[in-house]
């Protein structure tokens, strides 16, 4: 399905939701969220909503997989074309294809 150029012409930044080792350099309007043990679920959800639906300048959202697990329903339910959401491993949590939302969709398609 062809998207109009207006849907993505302003999207040029990466956003990151991750632990301390993953976050990108900050910008004037923060495009990252550092998550630690004290970060509340609502904060993570709010950041995800902001990066995916609130802002028009984000093209890619990178999120550590173990943090995506905390907001799994939101990540799995995300179906927009832009920004693209990608689950990445972190220092202490390697990538697990069983939990990746992309691979879940693949298994669902094969399973039908």
């Amino acid at each position, binding site marked *: 399905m062809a998207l109009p150029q207006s849907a993505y*012409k302003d*999207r040029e930044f*990466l956003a990151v939701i991750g632990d301390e*080792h993953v976050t990108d350099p900050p910008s004037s309007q923060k*495009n990252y969220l550092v998550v630690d043990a004290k970060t509340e679920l609502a904060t993570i959800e709010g950041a995800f909503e902001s990066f995916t639906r609130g802002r028009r300048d984000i093209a890619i959202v990178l999120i550590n997989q173990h943090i995506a697990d905390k907001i799994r329903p939101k990540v799995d339910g995300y179906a927009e074309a832009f920004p693209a959401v990608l689950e990445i491993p972190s220092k202490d949590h390697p990538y697990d294809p069983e939990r*990746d939302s992309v691979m879940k969709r*693949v298994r669902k398609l094969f399973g039908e």
Partner: protein
Amino acid sequence: MATISSLTPLPKPEDAGEVMAELTTLHDQLDSLWERYLAHLDEYQEAQKQIQKQLSSGFFSLAQANFKSRDRGRYGQDYYDGRTKASRRCGIRHNDDASATLGVEIVTVVVDEQGSTTKGTKGENDEKTEPRQQPSPPSTPAPDDHAQRPVKSDAPTANKQNEPAPPPQVSSGPPRDPLHWFGILVPRELRSAQSSFSCALAGPLLDAVNAGRALRGVEAEIRRVRKAVRRMEKAAGS
């Protein structure tokens, strides 16, 4: 009471033939869609493997850098400079088949003849050169290698060939390297970590993002064709 003549007539032989031909075409379409889907799946899985490899290498180098500089403190968010601006931007290219591919470009800071600073990336439209963020006040001079490094894109952008020739401008290189947050002389391991993370961003991360998007697109087509096949099979069966 319904009579045989009032019931829906059975499909004539030529209609049944058309239905079968249609079904065969749909099955062929489905097969080629599955082929594409599996190719994109393979790309995605391969990209995720490379991401794991690159990021692991980066984390390991970071751990080594932290180990070597125990007196100084950890290389972490405590040293982040809040004024830093993006040194990489995403470019979205519109393909011939109406899909979009994401790429990442290195940002340059361009000083025009009036001395005002604007940011741009190679190959973008003029309207995109308006500053979206205030430039960082220069605190240390940019290293010479940054000024002399040629501006290059990791992926081509849309409308590159349709751009008018830009006015003469002086390029002062990309934004300040985040490594300088930690001082001028940083350990080799920290540079290596930055290199690993940058390579991951420019390569496998983008490949994974594009493959994931392609998977979604092909998945939608597969569902559509499957639905058509079921409808056709139902019509042929009745």
